């Protein structure tokens, strides 16, 4: 990897996550170490139940590890207060979920406006940022469209735009193409890669789809809670 220490965005070390205690306790993640730099695209793969989503939730501060450290751009984010965690999520990370979770009662515009509202972006600035984000995923023509009338692929592209609209440092995507057909998977990954390239954002994709994983520069494999392997996907290196 040709990355410098300065643009190290995510640095987790010796991360352990257990659910419950004693004999009934389950160890989901064991001594996980991961470094992600700005502009990197990382796939986290592995079988179902291996802890991929748990790792992603910890990276988004939805969950907290039992042990280990997590530094985001050099800051110990595990020490953040509840309010600071919310600020972390609205300003520094963007999320794309598997089930294309849009606010169904809202339009495409309104879906992208919510993160900006929570981030305190002024109203007159919002439209420009929303249009830019939608153009990036080629959805500008659907800006006033009700979200519940979009196709699955379109919804996921809007979800990508929503994750990007606050210009985060990292996008965390949990099976973003899990419910899409082959063509739409390609489109969504194209848009994600394009966005990452243009914005310099890091992308961590949790997936068990080889088609998605092979498009990433790095693939990390989780097996029984252990991040066993991490290697660069040379085919996609610039």
């Amino acid at each position, binding site marked *: 990897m040709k990355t410098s220490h300065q643009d190290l965005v995510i640095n987790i070390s010796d991360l352990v996550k257990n659910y419950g205690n004693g004999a009934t306790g389950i160890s989901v993640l064991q001594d996980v170490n991961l470094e992600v730099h700005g502009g990197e695209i990382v796939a986290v793969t592995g079988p179902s139940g291996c802890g991929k989503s748990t790792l992603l939730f910890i990276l988004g501060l*939805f969950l907290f590890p039992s042990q280990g450290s997590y530094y985001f751009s050099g800051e110990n984010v595990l020490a953040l207060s509840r309010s600071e965690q919310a600020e972390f999520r609205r300003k520094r990370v963007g999320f794309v*979920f598997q089930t294309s*979770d849009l606010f169904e009662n*809202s339009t495409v515009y309104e879906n992208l406006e919510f993160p900006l509202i*929570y981030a305190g972006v002024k109203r007159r600035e919002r439209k420009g940022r929303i249009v830019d984000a939608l153009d990036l995923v080629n959805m500008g023509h659907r800006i006033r469209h009700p979200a519940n009338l979009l196709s699955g692929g379109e919804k996921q592209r809007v979800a990508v735009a929503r994750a990007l609209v606050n210009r985060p440092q990292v996008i965390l995507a949990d099976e973003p193409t899990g419910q899409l057909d082959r063509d739409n998977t390609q489109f969504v990954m194209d848009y994600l890669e394009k966005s990452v390239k243009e914005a310099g954002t890091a992308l961590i994709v949790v997936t068990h789809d080889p088609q998605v994983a092979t498009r990433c520069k790095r693939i990390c494999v989780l097996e029984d809670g252990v991040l066993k392997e991490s290697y660069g996907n040379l085919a996609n290196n610039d």
Partner: protein
Amino acid sequence: MRLDDLLRVSFRQVLRQRRRNLGVALAIAIGTAGLIVVITMGQDVKENINKDLELLGKATRVKVYFDMSQEKYSISRPQWFRESTVGELRRLPGVTGVTLVAFRNGIELSNRHDHQFRLKLLVGADEYIWEVNSFTPVSGRFFGYKEVKGRKKVCVLGADVAKKIFGDEDAVGNSLKIDNNYYRVIGLLGGLGIGDYAEWAFIPYTTARDRVLGQWLPNCIYLRCHTWNDVKSVASAIPEVVTANQDGEGIEVKVYWDQLKKVRRIAWWIEFFIYISIAATLILGGFGIWNIMTAGVQSRTREIGLKKAIGAEDRDIMAQFLAEALCISLGASVFGIVAGRVAVEILANILGSRPLEELFLFCVGLGLLFSVILGVGAGLFPSIRASRMEVVSAVNFE
């Protein structure tokens, strides 16, 4: 989250989920309309009932007179009320009317055919007697200021007296003779609850003083109190006011306590019924909002999780749910106010009454205040529940 964004987003959400909110909004609107109708018209109905009860019982009337027949009084000179005393009594807080009267019994009347009739009581009164006693004419009209000041020979007869003197003939417009003077009958007094007055005749006391033989001194006053709550204080203040303005020896104050007690008991039941209705309306409206907001938190769990995932703080979620509850309750309340106004207008037309505009405006304020209390009160718990939801469980909620 800025206030304008909060209100915009919440209003939009309520509007888009109008089908879900329709039932509860309708309930609150009907409740608010009911509240307005119950209070506005309830007061009006109560006042009408009071008036009817007044006609029957004279509960808020106080009689003040000089009783010189008692042995304890050393002097036997006649006593009567001075104009200055009457003026001071009119200024007493809680007094709405005062009338000065003088009585004479055993007076002979005759019609133009010289048919003689002995009258039970001839009353010399000023123009306020009708208002103070809540009298209304069954025929013709009552004498007023001009007739009293001009010492006119006019007469108002009790309906029974008129029947006895004139038979089936119309008494109004006819003449009768009192002490060799002819008086024109200008009106008849009658109706429900009139009692002994139906056998009395009324002439201006100035005319009586000038034209009816004997001494005509106004030794009796009737006062009308604004409400029955004023009766006690007015009655206790009267002797002091009288003695401050004239010789008060022999003064007697008569209050109709039994009637007052009965009237108050009936009114208490009416008020009790009104307030029970209001309480029931509020409780039902509150449960409606609480129910819809609780159901909303459950069905919108993923939405809450998503909003937290994109950066909403606990207070943003809480504020949004609270604002939505307020939008429902306030919006419904506004519809209720409009519906209430229409209902009040219709009912007022049916009952032939005119409720106070101030009372309606008070109800509007009360309705809005209650809707805010309802919205906040019923929406608070679901909002707190929504705000405390953990992101992972909310996002993974199916």
